[in-house]
């Protein structure tokens, strides 16, 4: 099938996703990633430490843990869709970062992303594909933040590349 042989133009791909996102907006809410991951974190923590988790007010007040939170399934769907796409296009193979420095950067990057998402209550998807198109004031604040962060991150990353 031609679809799985050639790389799709990202403008076509994102335009199609945008149209679907408008349908989602009408029935449930715009595409968002971050809330689902937080709920997964809560579910994993609850499985590990049980009711002890409820001693932390965050998990009682901000994110009471329950498995039927629809945002979880957007993320699981993305994993599934990408897996199917990779397998059918014969692009699935195990990729492992080779250098210790990559692992350290990825670890730090993951921690900053997780902490940042919860501090802001939103992630980059909600910023660009949710809040900004809704013209929410938070979208402009978030965009300023992410651009400044990406710029600082890129500067540090460049320095690290030059040092290697």
């Amino acid at each position: 099938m031609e679809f799985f042989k050639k790389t799709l133009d990202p403008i076509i791909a994102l335009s199609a996703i945008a149209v679907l996102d408008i349908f989602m907006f009408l029935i449930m809410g715009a595409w968002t990633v971050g809330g689902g991951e937080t709920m997964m974190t809560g579910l994993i923590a609850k499985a590990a430490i049980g009711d002890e988790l409820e001693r932390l007010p965050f998990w009682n007040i901000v994110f009471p843990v329950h498995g039927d939170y629809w945002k979880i399934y957007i993320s699981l769907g993305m994993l599934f869709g990408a897996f199917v796409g990779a397998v059918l296009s014969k692009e699935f193979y195990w990729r492992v970062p080779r250098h210790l420095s990559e692992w350290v950067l990825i670890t730090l990057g993951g921690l900053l992303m997780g902490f940042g998402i919860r501090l802001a209550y939103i992630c980059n998807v909600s910023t660009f594909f949710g809040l900004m198109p809704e013209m929410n004031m938070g979208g402009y604040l978030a965009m300023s933040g992410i651009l400044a962060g990406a710029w600082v991150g890129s500067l540090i990353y460049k320095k690290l590349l030059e040092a290697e």
Partner: protein
Amino acid sequence: MSPVAECFVAFLFGSVAGLLMQRSRFCNTAALRDAIMFKTYRNTKAMLAAMMILTLGFTGFMSLGAGHPLQFDVGLNTFAGLFLFGIGMVFAGACTVSTWVKTGEGNLGALWALIFTFVGMFLFSLVWSASWWPPAPQTMTGQINAPALQLGFANAQTLQQKFGVPAIVFGLVQFAVLFGLYRAILKRERAHHAEHVKHQQEHAKGKPVETAVQNA
């Protein structure tokens, strides 16, 4: 809609989005990082195209009172959180979306980033449980809350209510700005391409193009 139906629709949307992103190699991180570091705009243009469509769609339906816009107060935490996120996504080489997509392709680095995103979220839950900041959604008022460094809530719908102008009008203004940005990128790419062709011609002939034109 029942919670099960919502989960099903969400899974369907996620699957299509994941498939399209995998096939197009779209990455939100690249949309920002590549524009800043390498002055290349493949992903940036796609992001802008989606934002233009969404702006018209969302504000159009918001004019009619339809849709489910996100509703929560924003403030310093919004800027600070996304600032940290911006640094993190460049370090990790992926954002929350591309970590899932790359994990689906067998990228263990992306899976590692995802695991530590969860750890970062849990660490924040500890910090929040001690500080109670930013305010919990239940205590948000939609108004400025200076002690909590919150600016309140405003979107195209609140603008419509305040000024009596349909939300789509504000959406059209934002659309024009995004379209201007998109055109500026296209113009820059064309200029870059013309320069590249000129250099190639100079290199092939071994002398400057202007001289070759004069000799002809």
